[in-house]
């Protein structure tokens, strides 16, 4: 069993039970309290937790405990299956456009890790023999363009910028033309951090999307995000439409329940994990590992 810590708690809770037979509503209710706590402590959104607990309970109550399992193990098995269903089981790959350049666009809240992730993604794609172009569309944050240029230098990828006096919509269009002329097959657009409730800046993203039709819009989410992750993901998805998620700062000790929240409200896969500040600290995302991390195992 992968969920050892919670597993133990559940075994204790259910130890008073006779070892076999059907699970009663009362047994399941007690066990679910532990699951609920573990998920809330991991920052999984309250509503997501509620739905999850209901699904697991509905399945478990009245279930005949399998010969080979204790009641605790049986409940864990159901939790495990439902969690996997929610997180997605397989790894989700990046997609490419049939007609180059393939355009990726990074969006998200302030400080989530977009600019750093642009560099990481460029390096990742270079390893796959792609020729990326980084595009500086953050014209607001002090020294954002300089930051992207430095990052581009670290991975030896060109950076397209037009300073901070031109609109991001215009910059992104010009960048794609530039990529076409230079024969660059991949375009990675860095956008300014913004709040999901900032109407003007959200509209700017819609305009960039309409202008360059990105292959994928990737929502960059800080893995330390708390209950608000659902609002953020929901709003970005509703207003812009996202294709995938990149979870950053997983090198910390957060349980990372935001992953579950974001996945639950958008139904979009988490594609990569940021594992450090350095440009090569970047990995494909493994939903199963994340599930056990969230449950504190």
């Amino acid at each position: 069993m992968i969920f050892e810590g919670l597993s133990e708690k559940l075994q204790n809770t259910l130890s008073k039970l006779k070892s076999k037979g059907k699970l009663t509503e009362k047994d399941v209710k007690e066990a679910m309290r532990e699951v609920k706590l573990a998920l809330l402590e991991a920052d999984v959104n309250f509503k997501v937790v509620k739905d999850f607990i209901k699904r697991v309970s509905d399945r478990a109550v009245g279930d005949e405990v399998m010969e080979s399992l204790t009641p605790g193990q049986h409940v864990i098995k159901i939790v495990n299956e439902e969690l996997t269903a929610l997180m997605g089981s397989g790894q989700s790959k990046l997609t490419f456009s049939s007609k180059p350049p393939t355009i990726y666009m990074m969006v998200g809240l302030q400080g989530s890790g977009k600019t750093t992730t642009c560099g990481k993604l460029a390096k990742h794609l270079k390893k796959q023999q792609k020729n990326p172009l980084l595009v500086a569309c953050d014209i607001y944050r002090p020294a954002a363009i300089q930051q992207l240029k430095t990052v581009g230098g670290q991975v030896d990828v060109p950076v397209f910028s037009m300073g901070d006096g031109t609109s991001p919509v215009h910059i992104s269009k010009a960048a794609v033309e530039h990529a076409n002329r230079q024969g660059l097959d991949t375009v990675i657009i860095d956008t300014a951090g913004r709040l999901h409730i900032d109407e003007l800046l959200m509209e700017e993203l819609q305009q960039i999307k309409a202008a360059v039709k990105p292959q994928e819009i990737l929502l960059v989410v800080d893995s330390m995000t708390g209950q608000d992750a659902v609002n953020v993901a929901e709003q970005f998805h509703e207003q812009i439409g996202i294709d995938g998620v990149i979870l950053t700062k997983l090198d910390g000790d957060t349980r990372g329940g935001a992953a579950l929240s974001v996945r639950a409200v958008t139904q979009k896969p988490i594609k990569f994990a940021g594992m450090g500040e350095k440009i090569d600290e970047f990995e494909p995302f493994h939903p199963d590992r994340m599930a056990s991390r969230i449950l504190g195992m």
Partner: protein
Amino acid sequence: ISGYGKIDEAFYDELEEILITADLGFDITMELIESLREKVKEVKTDDPHQVKALLKELIINILSTGNRELQVEPPPAVVLVVGVNGVGKTTTIGKLTHYFKQQQKEVMLAAGDTFRAGAIDQLEVWGQRNQVPVIRHQEGSDPAAVIFDAIHAAKARNCEILICDTAGRLHNKKNLMNELGKIFRVVDREYPEAQKEVLLVLDATTGQNALQQAKVFGEVAQLTGIVLTKLDGTAKGGIVLAITKSMGTPVKMIGVGEQLEDLQPFDPSSFAEALLGDTDENTNVDDTKI
């Protein structure tokens, strides 16, 4: 809050949901609800508005802990700004500088983040916006050496407040936390006469991990206060209750945007109000929808 005039289990459940979704965390939410139940018995009320006011009072009590004034008098003073990656340290320094300058204080900045791409240039922009000097070395150089130089520059120019930026670091990185320890020792040794503010910057969007951040940063340095940023979003930042309650570190300032003026002294009462939300009105809106 639904169920007007009725303080039942569903009512407490709704309060619990409000607190949990504001990132207070399970433990403190349960404690608050328990204390609230006792208070309600004591006061003998069945008015939901009054019950909510009682809860608000409990929250304000916790948040009023400690001295919320920035300790920069008498000069000189040094303000160290620390925290994990991307929470808003450098931006907060830009805003703090503006805040102090409005009080006619002489401010100087130290570019102690020599690691992150563009970090020095970013601080330089904030220095220019505020027209204050920025002491900087090259990218990749020793941050403690920058702080050392900045302290001596501040002394030489009779600067009243020196604000030091530091690189974002996750609290579970031993070597980076040791590097921070070294910076504190330089400040203690080179500037014993200065008032010291060590401000931990927390992002209001952060969940339960913020408690761990506060604990570990607090072990490396004597934190004097918290700056809670990004409160202009929809996140409530409720984790600061757990921090203030367990560590006694007060929230001193809040960040409410990305511009110079977007920094305010922390007010427990309006924070508690925002945290509990305008739920009465929300319920009315929901009712009409159904």
